[in-house]
């Protein structure tokens, strides 16, 4: 099945599996996992440069911004002001106008502060950012974010790093029906079948970090995730059969002895 393109704000993406770059052993492993996953969108965090130890390598030495879409996030921001500050710094660091906007509302669950998220998204959209918001699995909030001008929404499957899989498939399905922009399931995926399910429901892409980086063998899991996302997408487009309570024979009765 050809011509299955993912386009967000006029940019075309090859892969429907997006990955985070945190928690890997080193940059070599990070790059190997990304390349094995076939991901062309990678998220990065914005942090202070270590000025006392300049021997530390730079992540961008490993990830050529010409080859990958570098998606800076505002991870760790608990206020609108902080999220704006990190987003503006990320843009000034010169990659692009893209930002994965996070405004976190609670330390233990890392659930988004959706009121703060909407407020920050409004301001950043006005400043010309392409805002991809990390949001709750709340269809009304997702719709508001789209109305503000977000060209995609990124609802969570489950809390960040929890590996619980899609906790609220019905809300996810409602979001997929309610918004007319790409939906990227972000956070909470634990294993390959979680990613497949998200794609089978009709998600446009899946973003994950811990599920790969935290696996016993991250490179093998990256490969599993690549196939999981592809299989889920293909199954979605192929159209599954309806569930029925009783059997339907698949061999003909005609010609039986």
């Amino acid at each position, binding site marked *: 099945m050809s011509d299955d393109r993912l386009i967000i704000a006029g940019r075309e993406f090859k892969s429907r599996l997006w*990955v985070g770059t945190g928690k890997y052993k080193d940059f070599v492993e990070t790059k190997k996992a990304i390349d094995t996953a076939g991901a062309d969108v990678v998220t990065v*965090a914005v942090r202070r*440069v*270590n000025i006392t130890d300049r021997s530390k390598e730079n992540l961008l030495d490993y990830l050529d911004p010409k080859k990958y879409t570098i998606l800076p996030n505002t991870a760790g921001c608990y206020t609108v002001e902080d999220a704006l500050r990190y987003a503006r710094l990320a843009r000034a660091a010169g990659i692009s106008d893209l930002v994965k906007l996070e405004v976190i509302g609670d330390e233990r669950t890392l659930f988004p502060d959706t009121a703060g998220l909407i407020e920050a998204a409004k301001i950043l959209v006005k400043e010309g950012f392409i805002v991809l918001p990390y949001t709750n699995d709340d269809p009304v909030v997702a719709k508001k974010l789209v109305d503000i001008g977000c060209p995609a929404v990124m609802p969570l499957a489950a809390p960040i790093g929890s590996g619980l899989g899609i906790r609220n498939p019905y809300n996810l399905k409602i979001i997929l029906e309610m918004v007319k922009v790409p939906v990227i399931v972000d956070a909470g995926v634990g294993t390959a079948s979680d990613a497949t399910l998200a794609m089978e429901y009709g998600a446009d892409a899946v973003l994950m970090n811990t599920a790969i980086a935290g696996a016993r063998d991250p490179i093998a899991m990256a490969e599993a995730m690549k196939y999981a996302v592809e299989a889920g997408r293909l199954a979605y487009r192929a159209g599954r059969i309806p569930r029925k309570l009783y059997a339907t024979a698949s061999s003909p009765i005609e010609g039986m002895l």
Partner: protein
Amino acid sequence: MTIQVNGEGRTASVGVTVAELLRELDIRPDRVAVEVNTEVLNRQEFERRGLREGDHVEIISFIGGGAGACGELGDLAIGPLT
């Protein structure tokens, strides 16, 4: 004069520019963003912007990250985290 760079006090010559400071620190200007007293600078301003006594300079770059802040990634605080 004394300025604050990424939260640490540092002696600098009066009027040193942001570009000069980055050279002193051996930091490639094309890989970072710089904030002076919470004002984000355009890269073109690095050569022009002279620093003054007591200025707070933040130099940031991209590091590995997925979502949320995670302790293993080192010092995270530019602004307050909570």
